[in-house]
Each structure stands twice: as C-alpha cells, then as structure tokens.
C-alpha cells in the first residue's frame, strides 16, 4: 500500500546500493506486489539505469515496462514525493529473479526527462508511447513522435483532462480536408527516419507493406527500404488497432473491465482475464479457492493451445503451405466446442471473476477434456511430418530472423520467443501463480533463436499444455468456485433471497462493483505470446485510477527491423509469421 516504509521490512540490497550511490533523495515506496519501488531524481535516471543494467550485483537485463501515471487527481499518495506526472520503469533481473520499479517525479510545466533508449533499446517505443499518451518529453530520443494515435491527434489521451467518452466531447466532424490532411500526414517520408533515397549505385525502392496486407495479421504497416528485393531498413508503424484499453480501465468498475481484457490479445481469451483478476484479488486481499485456481489453469492452457494452433497454421501458410491452417482450425474448433460447453463463449468468454470463476464446471466436462487430450497428440505428430519436417519450410525459416538471449532481452522479448534462444525462463515455473507449482510439465527450449525454432518451441508447448490439462482433469479439487470474501464479484447468489444484508451486498457489488483499498500492484503471467501484466493503481474507488497493460507483442514488433535487415521480403514474411503477435495485443 502507498504508505511510508515501515521498519518491519528490510529493504533489498539493491535499494541501499542505490541510496549510497545516488544520494538521500532516493526514496523507497512499498506496494502490495512487493516489488521494491524507488523514487530517483530525474537528473540521475540514465546513470541509475546504466548502473542497474551493467554494474548491479544481479544485473537487470530486461526493461520490462515503461510508462507514466497522471498523478494530479490522485488523493492517496502518502509518503510519495510530490509529482504531477510519474514516469515508471519496471526492470527485471532474470539471473537474480528480482524486480525493481524505478519512479521519477515530474511537474506538468516541465515534463522533460532524458531518454534511456541508448541503455535499453526497447525503451524507444515505450518512450514514444509515454510521449503520445501523456506528453512527456524524452530528451535525446532519436525520433520522439506519436506512436499509437494518428500523427495529427490533439491532446494526450491518458492525461486526466482528456475526455474518455464521446459524450464529453463536441459532436464529431469529418470533412474532406480533414481526411486529406490525415492521409498526407501518414505518408512515409524516408528522411524523417534518417534514410536516403539512393546510394552510390542504387536507387532504393520504398515499399509500404500494410496496413492492409495478407501477411501482417491485422492492421500493421511496415515501410521497407528495398535494394532489389533485399531489405535495407524497415520501419514498423502501429496504432491502427488502438482502442484505448488503458483509458477505458479508468472509467469501468473493477468488475466490468473484465470483458475488455479478453479483447487485448484476442486469441488468448480468458488468459487475459487471469493477470487482471489476480491483480485485483491481490489488491483486495482475496484468496482464491483451489478449485477455482485449477479451473483457471485448465481454461488458460486450453487457450494457449488454441492460440498456438492458429500460430502454427498461419506460420505454415505464410511460407506458402496452403493446407495445414485448415487442419489446425478444425482442431481449434474442437477446442472451442469444449470452451463453449464450459463457459458459454468461444473466443471472448470473459469467464474469470474477481475471486473465482463465473460458474462451476458443467456435467460431462471431464469426458470432453480428456477426449481432446487423447485426440490431439496424434494430430500433432501428423502436423510435424507435414510442416516442421518439410525441407522447403526448413530452408525458408532456419537461420532467418535469429537473435540470442541477450539481444532478445534488450528488445523486451519474453515468452516462447525468448525460450527459442535457449533461456528457460517461464513464469509458470520461476514464479508459480494460480497453483502452477502443483503440476508436472517441462519448459521446451530451442537454441538458435530463429524463425524455425520459435515455431518448434510453440509446438512443444502445445504438448506440455495438454499434459497440464490432463492433470487438471484428473486432479480437479472439489470445493467452491468462488472465494468467500466481501469483494468477490458477483457474490454467491444463493443466499440473497434470505437476508436483506446479503441482498444489499449483492446489489452493491453488481451495480457499483467492489471497492478496492488504495494501493498499487502489478501481476504478470505467462500468456500465450509472452509475459502479460496489469499494473493497477487504486485510489480507493470502484474503478482503477490507472491501469497499465503491458503486452508481449508490442516490443516484439519493435524488434522486427533489427532482425530482418539484410533479408529478403519473403524472409520478412517468415519472420513476421514466427513472431506470433496480435495487433490488438500491440496497440491495446
């Protein structure tokens, strides 16, 4: 909770290191997620991060997240330094299994901060996003421009004065001049990105791949500087799928935001609910019963398989193999019929609740789930012969778009794409949540970190997920599917007709939603495409004061130029196919 540090808890060593190096103004803040949170002076931010990355005892290799908080309307800031806009850096040390959150206080009349892009390359896009959303100026940034909103957007959406609803704004006007100006602003100008139009002996061709192109999996645009068919430079352009998920979190109750989370990684379904509800449960102090935890694991793994199957099929399709995607969609359909029987929904069931799940499992779920576990491995063997062992497919993807673990971490890559480089970091093993420590499963890894390995790892993950699902089915605990806690939403309905108190309680939790005490917390999970987390701040209300959604696809797209320069257009397609991203997950 946002209270002054109490003597009971010893500050981690790294914090005292920081205080001795960077002076008394370095302050510690406690949060319910127990990540050490330190406030540093803005002059020191580059030095602090450079120290943490290179000289700390356990170096913080990964800049997991970077964004800002508009603090101007926040009431509960006890013990925190005065700040109107707070920029926070979430650093992770995989070698030491530590987290560290660094915060910098800024005032609205002087929103300047030095860029850390030269220390953590992944900061480039995150800083652009913080500029776009809050107007924070990152000095020394190579190209600080809007990233999610259109170039001519007015205002910074996540500032509290920016309207959240159309009803708070003037009626919308769309004129022809407006459209022309917008289109003109979207034109790709190579000079703005430090590119020249010709070299000594060649004129470069600039090819605009997307935002509507068969192989970019959604609305993603990438401008290519081509020498013949060879890519010299690439500039990804995102934001065509931006829906303001973080803004919406600030005007939905803790409960009614759950369906929005389903649509963040729209192939992940309830996997998106999981970090969100776990985060709210931690803030509200709810302990989830065993049965609900195992049900959550089972459904999440079902969605991991569904997402990986789609990846597998489109991966083969993007290198020109026509048929596999149909078989995999058919299998995915079987899976969806199970999900539908259990949750009533298919891609977006919004089925997890604060404190548990919506309903208990239906009759016959056990047979459906185990039948699928029997059926699927044979199909996977078949697909392996058809796709992964195909020589043409191997020639198209081996050695294409490779990076090692250190490079992957520099670019913020997590999840299967990182494990393809040999790292075996999996949050389900390293930081078990929702009873994952009770299951037997392996973490598949590969060694080359190329497009082919990224596919191999995911295919093996399907098999491991099947193992987990079978264990869930065989060992499903009995007991309640919702926690017995006042903030569980909606509360169990059974007794509402018996006492007026329970009726009122039910009515309030359904209509206004639960109230979460003022605190900050972040929870991350091993989602289908990498680590996904919610960093929520409650100001003691029925809605989040700020909810940060960190998704794995966003940094993955930023990395594309780094791994595709020098390859051909056809290789770029193989690389894009191997990344496994969803534009909704990128833009949020």
């Amino acid at each position: 909770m946002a209270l002054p540090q109490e003597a009971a808890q010893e500050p981690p060593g790294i914090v005292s290191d920081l205080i001795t190096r960077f002076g008394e103004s370095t302050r510690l803040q406690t949060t319910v997620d127990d990540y050490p949170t330190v406030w540093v002076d803005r002059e020191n931010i580059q030095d602090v991060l450079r120290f943490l990355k290179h000289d700390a005892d356990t170096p913080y290799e990964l800049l997991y997240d970077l964004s800002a908080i508009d603090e101007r309307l926040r009431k509960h800031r006890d013990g925190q330094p005065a700040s109107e806009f707070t920029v926070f850096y979430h650093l992770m040390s995989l070698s030491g299994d530590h987290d560290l959150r660094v915060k910098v206080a800024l005032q609205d009349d002087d929103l300047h901060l030095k860029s850390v892009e030269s220390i953590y390359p992944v900061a480039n896009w995150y800083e652009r996003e913080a500029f776009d959303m809050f107007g924070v100026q990152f000095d020394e940034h190579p190209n600080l421009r809007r990233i999610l909103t259109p170039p001519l957007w007015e205002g910074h959406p996540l500032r509290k004065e920016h309207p959240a609803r159309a009803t708070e704004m003037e009626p919308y006007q769309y004129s022809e001049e407006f459209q022309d100006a917008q289109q003109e602003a979207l034109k790709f100008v190579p000079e703005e990105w430090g590119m020249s139009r010709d070299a000594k002996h060649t004129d470069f061709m600039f090819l605009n791949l997307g935002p509507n192109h068969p192989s970019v999996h959604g609305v993603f645009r990438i401008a290519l500087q081509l020498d013949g068919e060879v890519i010299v430079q690439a500039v990804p352009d995102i934001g065509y799928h931006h829906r303001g998920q973080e803004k919406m979190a600030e005007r939905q109750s803790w409960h009614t935001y759950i369906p929005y989370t389903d649509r963040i990684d729209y192939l992940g379904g309830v996997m998106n609910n999981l970090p969100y509800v776990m985060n709210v449960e931690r803030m509200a102090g709810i302990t989830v019963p065993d049965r609900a935890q195992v049900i959550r694991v089972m459904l999440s793994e079902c969605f991991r398989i569904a997402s990986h199957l789609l990846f597998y099929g489109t991966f083969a399709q993007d290198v020109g193999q026509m048929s596999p995607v149909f078989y995999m969609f058919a299998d995915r359909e079987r899976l969806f019929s199970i999900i539908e029987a259990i949750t009533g929904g298919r891609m977006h069931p919004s089925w997890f609740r604060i404190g548990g799940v919506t309903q208990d499992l239906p009759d016959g779920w056990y047979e459906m789930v185990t039948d699928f576990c029997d059926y699927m491995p044979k199909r996977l063997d078949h697909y392996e012969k058809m796709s992964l062992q195909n020589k043409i497919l191997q020639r198209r993807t081996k050695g294409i778009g490779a990076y090692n673990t250190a490079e992957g971490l520099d670019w913020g890559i997590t999840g299967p794409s990182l494990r393809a480089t040999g790292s075996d970091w999996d949050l389900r093993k390293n930081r078990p949540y929702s009873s994952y420590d009770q299951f037997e499963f392996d973490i598949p890894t590969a060694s080359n970190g190329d497009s082919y390995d990224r596919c191999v790892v995911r295919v093996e993950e399907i098999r491991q997920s099947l193992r987990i699902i079978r264990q869930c089915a065989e060992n499903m605990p009995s007991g309640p599917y919702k926690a017995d806690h006042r903030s569980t939403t909606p509360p169990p309905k059974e007794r509402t007709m018996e006492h007026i108190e329970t009726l009122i309680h039910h009515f309030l939790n359904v209509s206004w939603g639960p109230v979460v005490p003022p605190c900050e917390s972040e929870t991350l999970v091993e989602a289908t495409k990498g680590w996904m987390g919610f960093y929520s701040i409650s100001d003691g209300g029925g809605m989040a004061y700020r909810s940060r959604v960190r998704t794995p696809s966003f940094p993955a797209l930023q990395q594309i130029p780094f791994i595709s320069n020098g390859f051909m257009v056809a290789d770029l397609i193989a690389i894009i196919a191997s990344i496994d991203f969803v534009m909704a997950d990128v833009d949020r």
Partner: protein
Amino acid sequence: MFGIEDFWSYALILPVAVGVLLGALVLVWWERRLLGWWQDRLGPNRVGWFGSLQALADLIKLLTKDDWLPPFGDRVFFILAPIIVTAAMLLAFVVVPFTPVLVIVESNIALLWFLAMSAMAVYGVLLGGLSSNNKYALLGGLRAAAQMVTYEVFLALSILGVVMLSGSFSLVDIVENQRDGLWHFIPQALGLVIFVIAGLAETHRLPFDLPEAEHELTAGFHTEYSGMKFGLIMAAEYVALILLSCLIVILFFGGWLGPSFLPPVVWFGIKVVIVINFFILLRAAIPRPRYDQLMSLGWKILLPLTLVNILATGAWVLGTQG
C-alpha cells in the same frame, strides 16, 4: 491448295478453343472441390450440382464487373497483357494432338511451337507487372521475368531426351514412337521430373507462384487487375495447366495410347485428368521456396541434371541406333 485436311483443321479450331476454355472453367471448380476435400472443408457446394455451377457464377460476376483501368498505369500494355497471355496459351493448343486425327495442325516443329508460345506468355506477365505502375506488381513482374526466362531453358532442355529417342519434333511422331517400346517416362524419368518442375515454374502455380506470391506481394503482377482482365489472366493460368498436363501425357505417358477397349481420346482424357490432379495435390501440399532458392535450384541443380540427361540419352541413342 485447300484440301480436305485443311477444312478439317479449320473446323476443329472452334471446338478446341471452346473445349479448352470450358475445361479451364470446370478445372477452377474441380480444383476448389478437391482442395476442399483434402483440407477437411466443404469447398463450393451451393450453386448447381455439388457446386458445379460456381465457376460459371464467378464468370458472370467477372464479366459484369466494372472494367477499371488504373489511371496511373500504361493503358495500352495494361490491356494488352492479359490478351497476350491468354492468346499465347490458346495458340499453343493448335499443335496438341488429342488423337492422331484430332489435331488442328500436325507439324514437324510442333514442340518448338509449344516452346515459342510459352515464351510469348512471359511477355504478358512482364508487361502486366510493368504497366500497372504498382510496386507489388513491379516486384512480381521482375520475379516472373527472372523465373520464367530461367525455367524456359530447362523446359526446352528437359524434353531434348524425348526428341532424341523419337527422332522428331512432331508430337504425333513422339506418341507413335512410344507405341511399341516403353513409354518415355521410364527411360526419361529424369527428363520428366525436370519437365514437371520447369512446367510448374512456367505456369507459376504454387509452390512456384512467386510472381504472385499472395503472402508477400499481395497478388504480384496482377495486383491492379480486376473484372474480366483478371478473369483472362486466371483463365490463362488454368489453360496453361491443361496444356502442361497434355504435354506431359504426350511426351512421357504415351498420349492416346492404351488398351483398345476404350477409344484413344478417352485414354488421353483420363491421363490428363490424373496429371492435373497430381498438380492440384502439389499445390495443396508443398510450401513456397524463396525466390533466390528457386533460382539457385534451377541453375545449380537442374541445369547439370538436364545436361547429364541429354548426354546419356545421346550416347544411348548413338550406341543402339548409330
């Protein structure tokens, strides 16, 4: 000058042309049904008996579509390109003998005529790509030029073995040559494999559809085409597939030859359908190699193999007949 044979051949022109185009139409439907069956899905099944009128419905749609010309392109060549492709492919059928009598022109340079016409088709693809003035079409056109010119070479070289065995460029002679001996696919197995690969590259069907490679170049050289001009390009592609299958049957599988309980033309038809199905199966099964991989496959592997094939066949012919 104008004898009964000439009259016969002129009379055949219309049935052959219409037959081939109808065949292309049926093939569109058949390919979609077959792919649907192989891929665990339905395929077209609503219009007509088992969806058999689907291709016709598509044709009507294409014919009635707005005939759009890209204002930024080169109008003349943009219109000319699909005409060239289709015309070249149809003209190649002039020399195809369905049976000894069912052939429009029986010529002693029939095989060369086929090669010439398939080379003409390259112009259509190239001009279509260039005249569209679209970057994707340009890349597709460039790929097409490189790919088709390269594989033109192997297409010609791979059938030299057959020509040597038969001692003739006449397609009728080549089939007759197989009557008493082995069909050519046994002594010329290497030639057949290379001819199939080169033919696939020449008709730019998946897995060698790099000039249009949907996942990379959206639609490649015909990105800007719509309506019936697009329809013509598609028709040419299917006509080319039929043509290629006919040639394979004639050169390697004894054309119309077969046990006499069925008429020759039926044998020819059966063989062609089997070859076509094989090509559709290839499309369903194999991924697409990269453009430079296809090129190096041609020059580094296929070229030496064809030369070996020619040398070996030549030596054998000299040894047995010379």
